[in-house]
C-alpha cells in the first residue's frame, strides 16, 4: 500500500522548491543540498525543537521557526540566511558555548561558530564548576553577579563500568531522554529535572545509574551530540591522550548475540574495539542497540603485551572499575 504525497511548492532563499506534503522545512532544505545546522534533531528521534540552532525565517511569521519540525506549506517563503536568522544562530551558539564545554562536540559545531561569528568569550570568564547543580530546587535559581559567564560545569559522573556522564558538556538537547523513553528504549531512566538554567538531565532523585532503571543499552550515548555521554573506553583513552580517531577504522557488521540482526559499527583502534555504534538509517533498529550489542564485544578482545600496548592498560582498567 502506498500513498502518493501531494507536491508542495515553496521557495528557499528565493529558489523555488517542490517537496512532498508532510515534509519539514529541514527536509526541503536538504533536498536541494542546503543543510541547516542542528543539535537536538536526529532522524531516528521525534523532534523536540529545543536547541533553536536550526531556526529559519518564514515570510509572514512573527517569530523564527525551527526548520527541523515545521512542516512546509504551499507558497511558503523560507529564508535560511537572513540577518535575523544569522543573529539568532550566533546567539544560540554563544549561549551554548559560553555555558557548556563543547570540546568533544561534533567538529562541525566549531565550523558553525566561525560561520556565524559566535564569540562566547564576550560574556566574561567561565564560572567555575559547581557541586550542587543536581540538588537545585525549581524556582530557587540564584542569579549570578554578572562577572562571569554562567556555566553548567560540574564533576563528571562515573558510576559504572560501561559509560560515564559529563554534564558539563550537556546542552540539554533532550536526545538522551527521548532515546531512553518512548523513541527507542522505553526505559525512562532519565528525565529533565529542574527549571530554567538549573534544568539538567537526571535519574530519579539523582541516584547513581546503578540504582536507576537504566538497562545500559547505551542508546543515549548513541544520540548525544556533544560527548557528554561517552563510552568508558573512549573517555579513559581520551584522558590518557590515547584516543586517535584518525587511526580508527569503522566496519559495519551484524551483532553476534540474538536474532534481531542489529547492525553494529565497530570502531577499531590498534586491533581493539573501542566503541560500537549503529547506523541511524538502517531499517532493523534505526541505530538503537541493547547492552549486549553495544558493550558485549569484550570476548573477542585479547589483551596484548601491556608494556608495549598502553591502550590495553587503559581499557583493562576502564572495564573493571
Amino acid at each position, binding site marked *: 500500500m502506498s500513498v502518493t504525497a501531494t507536491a508542495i511548492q515553496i521557495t528557499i532563499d528565493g529558489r523555488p522548491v517542490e517537496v512532498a506534503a508532510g515534509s519539514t522545512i529541514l527536509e526541503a532544505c536538504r533536498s536541494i543540498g542546503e543543510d541547516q545546522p542542528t543539535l537536538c534533531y536526529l532522524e531516528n528521534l521525534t523532534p523536540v525543537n529545543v536547541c533553536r540552532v536550526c531556526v529559519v525565517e518564514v515570510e509572514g511569521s512573527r517569530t523564527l521557526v525551527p526548520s527541523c519540525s515545521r512542516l512546509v506549506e504551499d507558497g511558503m517563503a523560507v529564508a535560511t540566511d537572513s540577518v535575523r536568522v544569522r543573529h539568532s544562530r550566533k546567539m544560540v551558539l554563544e549561549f551554548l558555548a559560553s555555558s557548556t564545554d563543547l570540546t568533544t562536540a561534533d567538529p562541525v559545531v566549531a565550523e558553525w561558530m566561525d560561520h556565524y561569528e559566535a564569540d562566547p568569550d564576550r560574556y566574561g570568564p567561565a564560572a567555575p564548576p559547581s557541586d550542587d547543580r543536581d540538588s537545585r530546587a525549581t524556582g530557587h535559581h540564584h542569579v549570578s553577579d554578572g562577572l562571569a559567564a554562567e556555566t553548567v560545569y560540574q564533576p563528571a559522573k562515573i558510576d559504572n563500568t560501561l559509560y560515564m556522564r559529563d554534564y558539563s558538556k550537556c546542552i540539554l538537547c533532550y536526545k538522551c531522554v527521548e532515546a531512553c523513553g518512548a523513541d527507542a528504549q522505553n526505559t525512562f531512566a532519565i528525565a529533565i529535572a529542574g527549571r530554567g538554567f538549573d534544568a539538567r538531565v537526571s535519574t530519579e532523585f539523582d541516584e547513581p545509574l546503578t540504582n536507576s532503571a537504566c538497562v545500559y543499552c547505551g542508546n543515549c550515548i548513541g544520540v548525544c551530540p556533544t560527548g557528554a555521554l561517552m563510552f568508558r573506553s573512549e573517555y579513559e583513552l581520551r584522558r590518557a591522550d590515547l584516543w586517535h580517531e584518525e587511526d580508527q577504522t569503522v566496519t559495519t557488521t551484524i551483532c553476534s548475540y*540474538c536474532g534481531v540482526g542489529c547492525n553494529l559499527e565497530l570502531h577499531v583502534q590498534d586491533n581493539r574495539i573501542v566503541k560500537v555504534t549503529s547506523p541511524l538509517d538502517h531499517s532493523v533498529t534505526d541505530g538503537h542497540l541493547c547492552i549486549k550489542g553495544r558493550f558485549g564485544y569484550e570476548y573477542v578482545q585479547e589483551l596484548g603485551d601491556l608494556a608495549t600496548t598502553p591502550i590495553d592498560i587503559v581499557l583493562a582498567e576502564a572495564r573493571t572499575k
Partner: protein
Amino acid sequence: MYTVDPRRTTSAAWADVWLGIDVGSDIALANTVGHEIIAAGLVNQDFIDHSTAHFEEYKEAVREWTLDRGEQVTGVPAEVIRQMAHDYATAETAQICWTLGITEHANATDNVLALINLSLLTGHVGRYGSGLVPIRGQNNVQGGGDMGALPNKLPGFQDVEDDEARGKFEALWGHPVPSEAGLHISLMLEAMGNKEITALYVIGENPAQSEADTAHTEALLDGLEFMVVQDIFLTRTAEMADVVLPAAAGWAESDGTSTSSERRVQRIRKALEPPGEAKDDIEIISLLAERMGRGWGIPTAEQAWDELRALSPMHAGMSYKRLEELGGIQWPCPDEDHPGTQFLHSWLWEDPMPREPAPFMPTVWVPPIDELSDEFPVRMTTGRRLDSYNTGVQSGGYHSPLRSGGIIEIAPEDGETLGLAEGDIVTVSSRRGAIDVPVYFHESLRPGLAFMAFHFPDEAAVNQLTIDAWDPKSGTAEFKATAVRIEKVA
C-alpha cells in the same frame, strides 16, 4: 498486548494484560482460546474455507477445552482467557510472537502447532501486520538452518532424500551426498550412548554445558573415542576434546553473512585480525579437506556464498552487491530483480491457492514430564537475562552492572514459608542432581515457581537439574519445566 508467561517479566509489565500461565500448560491455553473463538462465532470462515484443511477435526479436538477447563489447567482466570480470545479474533491485525518458553518443552512442536491453529482460525497470517513470529534467540540460528545445518536438509531447506535436489549438489561437488537424514543433537547423544557414534566434530557449540542433564552429557562426551572442537573459546567441551581448532570470531574477525529472525540475510564484515593461530571457519574446513585429499583451495566468503546461490533457489538473487545496497534481503529471493520476501505465507491469500491448503493440526495437552511431588514440590523454569547470553562464554567477557550471577529466584512468599533470607545459600535438588546457590526473592514469581538463568554454569550448573526428556520432532529438551526441592544449607 497480551503477555503469556509464568513469570511477570518486564514484557508482562509492559503488556495490557498478563496471563500468568502455569508452566507447561501452553496447549491447554491455546486450545481453550481456539474453542472460545469457535464457540463465540469469531472464526474467519472465508479464510478457513479458502486456505485451510481439517477444520472439523480441529473443532472436535478442542471441544473439551471450555473456558472452565482452561482455567483449571492453566491457572488463568476464564474471563481473561475469553477476553484474549475475543481480542485476538476480532483484531484487524494480530501477531503471535513466541520464543523458548514454547519450544523448550518435551511437546515443543505441538506447542507451536497449537499456536499456528489459532492463526488459521482467524486468518492472522501471511498478510501485513499479522503473523506467527518465532523470535530467534541466536544471531544466526536461522542462517544455520538455511545453510543445511539440519540433519535432513541441504542448503535452502532442500530435502536430502529428494534425489533431484541432492543430484544438483552431487553434480556440482562431483561427489555423492548421503541420501538419508542424519541425527539431531538429542538422537546423537543417544547414539553416543549406544556407541553408534564414536567420533564427534563440534563447531561453535558447548554441549557439555548447554545440554540438559549435564552429568549424563559429560559422560557421553567422555566415552567418545575422538572429539574435535572448533571454537573461538576453550569451552568446557573443548577442554574435553582430543583436538581443538581455534577459530576466528565469525561476526568481527571474518567476512560472510548472517540471517536474522526475519529471514534477513545481512553481511558480516571483518573488523579485527583474529588472535594467534585462529583461522576463519572456511579456511579451517578447506584445509581439513585438503588433508583428506580433497583440496578445493581456500575460497573467499563471497565465492562460497556464490556457490550457495547456485544451489539454493531461495538465495539465488542475493549477490553481495545487492545485500550491501539493500541493507540485507529477506528470503526467498529467487533472482536478482526480486526485492526479497517480507512475509512468508502470503500465498494463503492467493486465489486460486498455489499449494495445498494449510492443515489444522489438532494437539493434545500433556503435563510436563518432570512431575511435581511432595519430594519435589517447586516448579523451576530456566531462562535468560538481558545482559547475558547462553552459557555465558561470550557475555561473561564484559563487566555488566546488571549481572545477577548464578542464583535461584523464588517468590517472596515461598522465602517466608521456607524461613529463608535473601542471599542464603540453598540446596536445589531435582531427580537428577543437586546444586548449592544463593537464593533471592522476586515479585515476578508466584508461590511454587522458581527461576534460574542458565548463563552461569560454573557458579550454578542449572542443567545438572534439568531433565533430558526431549521433543521427538524438534529434539529440544524440556529445559523449562523441572521439579525441584529447595532447602537451606545448614
